């Protein structure tokens, strides 16, 4: 019997949705599982770290890692998985671009820790204890993974061969990526395994998009009732479809929600947030400076909106702070 290709799955700083997306393969999961040996998948199967460490370098055919890199343990595991795998695939927005957890880069680590462990009204921590890397408990030294200053995408820590985008990726994309690996028909290294064009281009509502969009005020979705057939932008609702890679089957649009950009930028764009902010600016139908400022101010958190999934891998990567700490 010839040996089956070995597959591993690992998670770093993520919500677990990407793991769920693997389960969403449904019956297809059985097809994939029959064709491969899953050698490591902490969330679903009982393997230990030492099982992976004991493997030969490059023994695993492909490893899918989801989640951003935020702790020392995650970085350590990413490096081990890189060493043991022929192919390392970033699975989902967090591994691909830093994802939602990457928004932490708009703040400093100390501010986040004190907010979470000391200031939040529901926190009960009278001694104000913050998580420590090392602590002595009943005479024993206990260690926790250290939390990094900045959240990083997977390819900022180790070399990544392919990317499956999405928050979470669609089962179709995961299956297709798996089949590409198994049938050995992979595109050039570094490819994002999804659409090449912007979501707008494949949007089911593209016909209702006027040639020239003209918006005087941006509306938030709770402020308005909108036509479920019409282009969101034409209704004044911010949709990031023009600046986001397609290939998601327009899941959000079909659920009558605007695009939030989880597939990241297209191949020609370096910084999705910059592009989102400038396409949005171009459809504003106001040029009087005061009125323009009012329109811009009607976007409550532009940084969080435009960089929702890609702050960690954007040009500036996060808030600029002196590097003294």
């Amino acid at each position: 019997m010839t040996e089956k290709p070995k597959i591993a799955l690992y998670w770093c700083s993520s919500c677990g949705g990407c793991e769920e997306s693997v389960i969403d393969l449904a019956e297809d999961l059985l097809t994939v599982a029959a064709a491969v040996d899953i050698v490591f998948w902490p969330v679903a199967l009982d393997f230990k770290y030492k099982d992976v460490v004991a493997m030969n370098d490059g023994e695993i055919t492909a490893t899918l890692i989801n989640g951003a890199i935020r702790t020392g343990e995650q970085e350590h595991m990413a490096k081990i998985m890189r060493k043991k795998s022929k192919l390392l695939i970033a699975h989902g927005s967090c591994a691909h671009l830093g994802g939602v957890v990457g928004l932490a880069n708009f703040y400093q680590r100390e501010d986040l820790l004190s907010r979470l462990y000391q200031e939040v009204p529901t926190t009960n921590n009278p001694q104000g204890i913050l998580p420590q890397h090392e602590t002595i408990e009943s005479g024993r030294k206990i260690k926790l993974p250290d939390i990094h200053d900045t959240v990083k995408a997977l390819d900022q820590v180790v070399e990544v061969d392919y990317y499956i985008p999405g928050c979470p990726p669609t089962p179709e994309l995961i299956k297709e990526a798996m089949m590409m690996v198994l049938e050995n028909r992979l595109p050039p290294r570094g490819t994002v395994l999804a659409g090449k064009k912007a979501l707008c281009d494949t949007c089911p509502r593209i016909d209702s998009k006027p040639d020239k969009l003209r918006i005087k005020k941006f509306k938030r979705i709770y402020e308005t009732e909108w036509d479920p057939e019409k282009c969101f932008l034409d209704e004044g609702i911010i949709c990031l479809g023009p600046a986001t890679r397609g290939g998601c089957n327009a899941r959000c649009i079909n659920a009558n929600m605007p695009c939030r950009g989880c597939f990241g930028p297209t191949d020609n764009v370096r910084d999705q947030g910059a592009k989102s902010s400038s396409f949005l600016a171009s459809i504003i139908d106001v040029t009087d400076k005061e009125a323009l400022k009012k329109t811009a101010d009607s976007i409550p958190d532009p940084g969080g909106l435009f960089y929702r999934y890609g702050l960690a891998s954007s040009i500036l990567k996060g808030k600029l702070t002196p590097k003294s700490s």
Partner: protein
Amino acid sequence: MIGFEPKIIGFLCNWCSYEGADAAGRARKAYPAGLRVVRVMCSGRVDSQFILEAFKEGADGVMILGCHPGDCHYKEGNLQMLKRYVILKRVLSQFGIEEDRLKLDWISAGEGDKFVKIVCEMTERMRQLGPLPR
């Protein structure tokens, strides 16, 4: 800050502002040497990515100078930049980049004096703000 000379990237449009800078040069006007000029065909050509890249690569301030509204060689490229600028400024503040570090202004081909004045003011403001941390 002692000995700090701010670096400023200036994107100047080919038709008005670059000519305006040229006018300042022909008239032998002096202005701070920290300005690095990039000539672009239109202020509307200045992609937001260029601005972020400039800040990342060491600029303490970024200036975009275009034709006065109504004078744009491409009709409304400068107004497109104006809209982009207003939104980008809000994004920049979330990155910890002070509002004054990005400036958009209009310089016509004849306004050499105004060009010098704006560069001097911008440099002075950057001196006050100090180097951009990165």
